[in-house]
């Protein structure tokens, strides 16, 4: 095996410190980078989680410095890059890290990043996607039958992504894991010496979008023998007693090894459901376990010492992925965002889910542009998506891609390292976020909607389109329950569909009432349920005992718990269970009627005095307020509609609203009128009246940026009362 070392033999420690970031921190006391809320503590510095992606092997070597400098010019302190296995492995076990191809000199790239003053977020895979053929995994691996995931008939599981369909690997395969170990061992000598404080690497990611490689229909995979053994161990841990399993399952078993995963959906009654619900839960478990195992492998090879991240792709509500479980397996889990503005609701739902379920809302891939085979995204779409996600609580992001590359369009910096025209908008946005210290603000929500994971599992199990999975439907703008069978399984109706309907009905009602809310996954840490005044939980005939217990505690502690439409009498294994009644909770039958839910929400407003800050008219406009200790700091006003509107926004006190993207200032006593072009978001800095508007950018900067946009540098002031 070729020794994996840098041609330079180690990290670059030379170069002037012009920036005061990467190198300034390195001079300080040596400490491991650590996440503190939405900030990264590096030595004595606190750095926001703002980064931009650049793929060194896809950019001409002579453009590396220019590209990195432009990332810094955008205002980003961190550059992110994958380290692709298939690019560096030239033949089995032989690696080129720049010895032959200069573009593959990842060590030089990392050192150059440090030299330019950037920290690095490194993602060594093994799976990277990145629109690469075979997703960055060597061809020999994907065509090794021992490494391949298996279908119920033991066939390979083929993914249809361009430019080649290929059989996807099995995360459970011991052979695949062994191969990954060798890759990590090869790349670790490049990465490890460059981990902070010796080098610029301050974040790492394990694997990428672990979700069974997008072939995640409920009965698509994985029936690999190693996966089946994992399944049997999972059942053993979950049910403990084979006798009990035989009572719950339709069949009787002599040993755990006799229990085989269901190859298709066959349930007709509630009592037939447990094997399918277990299988759906196992698929989540398998994903988490794969990430956890790969983390151990990374650490075993020496790639440690930074927070470890993982990203979840589009279609999260239909994925075999448990975000709470992943959140326990890595230090930070986030969602990827590639949405056109018309998917405002999806952007909102996904962001509010993260806001409720994990501590920090982070986007490991916040799309600027897209691959050519995705739904086309304009610059305005990308900007809308980013700003709407920020509005609903995103605190950190990785702009993907910051520098253009093969199989991509729309990055703000081109392949030669020159900024494109629209880079200025991103620059202004990032400057505004840094000026407001946006990562330290918070968006207050008093209502939590519980995302009921067991019902989501039933939805996955009853999905009828196989490989066109629930998450694919969701990723293409539909809901993950759209293709569920309609059977009621002796329940009052199709639970697998109704839970989604109920959440949508409440979300719509809360939006109409301008009441901020979040979604909390039913399996999130207990602390994630605290601090809300109202918690709404869908409960049908069966419920997770753990959730019921949680609701009980919440109601006893004074939280206004609302559940319905049923009082459950079955546990997750469809065993009759006598649940203690939730004495102080409110059982609501009619949870699917918009009128009834509107009425319910209005009682919360009148009786519980729920906050509905900065209400806006017309109703198409949504607002979101982010505060610091002193009060409202940043207001977002969103117009997801297709028509220009002049939004009237109620103000709690006389204030100036400064738009740092356009330099407009709006002033109002009790109301401000904000013009909003179709499908745009304004980020407005709030300043109480009587004080000067926020510190403006330097006149030189404004002139420079104004000239670039052909606009006057002076701010325009609009006053309304």
């Amino acid at each position, binding site marked *: 095996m070729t020794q994996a070392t840098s041609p330079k033999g180690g990290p670059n420690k030379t170069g002037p410190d012009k920036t005061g970031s990467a190198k300034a921190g390195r001079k300080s006391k040596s400490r491991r980078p650590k996440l503190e809320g939405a900030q990264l503590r590096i030595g004595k510095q606190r750095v926001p989680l703002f980064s931009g992606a650049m793929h060194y092997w896809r950019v001409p070597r002579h453009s590396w410095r220019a590209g990195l400098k432009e990332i810094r010019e955008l205002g980003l302190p961190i550059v992110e890059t994958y380290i692709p296995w298939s690019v560096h492995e030239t033949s089995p076990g032989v690696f080129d890290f720049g010895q032959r191809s200069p573009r593959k000199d990842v060590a030089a790239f990392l050192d150059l990043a440090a030299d330019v003053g950037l920290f690095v977020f490194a993602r060594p895979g093994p799976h990277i996607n990145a629109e690469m053929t075979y997703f960055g995994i060597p061809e020999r691996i994907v065509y090794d039958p021992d490494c391949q995931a298996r279908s119920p008939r033991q066939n390979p599981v083929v993914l249809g992504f361009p430019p080649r369909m290929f059989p996807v690997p099995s995360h459970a395969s011991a052979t695949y894991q062994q191969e990954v170990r060798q890759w990590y061992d090869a790349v670790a000598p490049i990465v490890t010496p460059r981990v902070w404080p010796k080098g610029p690497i301050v974040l790492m990611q394990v694997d990428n979008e672990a979700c069974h490689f997008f072939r995640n229909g409920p009965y698509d995979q994985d029936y690999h023998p190693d996966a089946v053994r994992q399944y049997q161990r999972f059942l053993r841990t979950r049910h403990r007693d084979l006798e009990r399993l035989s009572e719950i399952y339709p069949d009787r078993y002599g040993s755990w090894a006799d229990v085989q995963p269901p190859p298709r959906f066959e349930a007709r009654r509630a009592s037939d459901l447990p094997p399918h619900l277990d299988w759906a839960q196992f698929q989540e478990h398998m994903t988490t376990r794969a990430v956890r195992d790969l983390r151990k492998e990374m650490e075993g090879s020496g790639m440690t010492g930074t927070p470890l991240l993982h990203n979840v792709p589009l279609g999260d509500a239909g994925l075999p992925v448990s975000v709470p479980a992943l959140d326990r397996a890595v230090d930070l889990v986030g969602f990827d965002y590639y949405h056109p503005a018309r998917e405002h609701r999806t952007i909102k739902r996904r962001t509010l889910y993260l806001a409720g379920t994990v501590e920090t809302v982070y986007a490991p891939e916040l799309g600027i542009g897209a691959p050519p085979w995705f739904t086309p995204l304009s610059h305005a779409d990308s900007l809308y998506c980013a700003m709407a996600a920020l509005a609903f609580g995103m605190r950190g992001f990785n702009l993907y891609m910051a520098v253009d590359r093969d199989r991509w369009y729309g990055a703000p910096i081109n392949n030669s390292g020159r900024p494109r025209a629209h880079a200025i908008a991103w620059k202004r946005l990032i400057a505004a976020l840094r000026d407001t210290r946006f990562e330290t603000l918070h968006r207050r929500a008093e209502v939590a909607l519980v995302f009921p994971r067991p019902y989501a599992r039933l939805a996955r199990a009853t999905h009828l389109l196989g490989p066109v999975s629930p998450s694919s439907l969701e990723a293409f703008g539909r809901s993950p329950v759209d293709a569920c*069978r309609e059977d009621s399984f002796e329940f009052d109706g199709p639970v697998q569909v109704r839970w989604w309907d109920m959440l949508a009905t409440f979300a719509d009602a809360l939006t109409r009432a301008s009441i901020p809310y979040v979604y909390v996954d039913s399996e999130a840490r207990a602390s994630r349920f605290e601090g809300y005044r109202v918690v709404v939980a869908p409960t049908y005939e069966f419920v997770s005992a753990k959730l019921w217990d949680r609701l009980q505690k919440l109601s006893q502690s004074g939280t206004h718990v609302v559940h319905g439409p049923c009082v459950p009498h079955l546990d997750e294994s469809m065993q009759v269970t006598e649940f203690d009644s939730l004495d102080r909770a409110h059982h609501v039958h009619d949870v699917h009627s918009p009128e009834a839910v509107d009425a319910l929400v209005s009682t919360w407003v009148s009786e519980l005095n729920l906050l509905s800050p900065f209400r806006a008219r017309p109703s198409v406009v949504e607002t979101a307020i982010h505060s610091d200790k002193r009060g409202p700091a940043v207001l977002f006003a969103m117009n997801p509609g297709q028509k220009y509107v002049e939004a009237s926004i109620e103000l709690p006190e006389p204030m100036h609203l400064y738009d740092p993207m356009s330099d407009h200032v709006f002033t109002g006593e009790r109301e401000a009128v904000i013009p909003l072009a179709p499908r745009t978001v304004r980020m407005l800095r709030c300043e109480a009246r009587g004080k000067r508007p926020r510190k403006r950018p330097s006149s030189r900067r404004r002139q420079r940026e104004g000239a670039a946009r052909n606009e006057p540098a002076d701010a325009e002031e609009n006053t309304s009362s």
Partner: protein
Amino acid sequence: MISGDLRFEGFDAASWGNLLSLFSPGMANRGRRDMDATDFPSVNTDDGAEAKSSGTLVVVVDASGSPLAALHTERGRISGFADRHAASTPNTPPSNGSSGRSSRKPSLRPPAADSSADARPDDRAGQFSPGDLADLCRRYRAGRCIVLREGAAEELMERVSLRLVRGEDYAAQWLTMWRVYRELLQGGHIQIWPSTLTALPIPTSATLERSLDLILPDGRAAVVALFDRGRLWTAAALRRRHGHFDFVAGPDLIAHWTGPLGGDWRRDYRIVSDAVARAVAPVHAGVYSDVSTVRALLREPDPGRWARAVAVRDLIVHPTPPYAAVALGADAVRGVGQATARVLGGVNLLAALNPVTHYVRGRISEIASVTETLGFNPLSALASVVGKDSDGEFFDKDADRP
């Protein structure tokens, strides 16, 4: 057809969007649709007939043909579909959790020939008639309807995975998938309406390759560059090498290769063509125009318009590969036919020229020169017949003659 090492680069969001808006407007417009009214939109059949039919209605049925669920790809889930269209045949297996299925209405489908639960996978039991599917499309305002027997999508992927061969390119892989799809269609696992492509013979990889040889020979490039007020509005250079398309370059790269352009696209096209030849491969076919011309041509496919645009250099095809010349020649012939019909008091010469156009089409692979084949240059002939008025609009020189 598509290389595993395909390079696609040099587009920003605007230039890529511009390219799609011309050649794949449906895809480009997907993001411009209104957002859904709720987080869980469902199809309301009472929305009124004025709503346009679009998207696909997907219905999943069980082995006996009884619907299990349906969704509209643009409008959402169709709640209660199974109940509304459930079969009432005595052989239908009992429904799951029958509490919600007690009051079934008659099915849209005719009684199944064999609707037993253990029906063989390839039988045609429980098929909808084309009329049923058309009715469903009308009712749910869908442009097409696809009916999948439960498990059909899984079956498709199982069969495909067995037949994929390592090293096959993407086109060959899709042909394999198309063949499997056709098998499932013939076996009754899938029904589609309207069935426009079901009779089309599936080409082999070799046939496909031969056709591509004609369109873009190996080692050559094709270019399209559209200008707006003298600036590149969008452009793409496509290269074929070792039998595969391996490089798609966008306007950023092309501008990098050309350096600054003069601002007159009728001159600049040669610079673009030469630059692509230097940086990518010798150019086999190139199309250059102002974007407004191309928009108008795509909007109004009148006979002869393309040929007229070429004749008056509103569209430059350079070099002109034989197939493009033939297409333009045929278009010119149609245009001449229509123009002379007016002059000759309604006598349509186009019909008389049909044998010539058939002959030309039949010899497409042998044609080196349209002029040589036809014995006259159709574009010159057209140019002598048509001209442009001061507003740049086409007119027939002879149209107003008494």
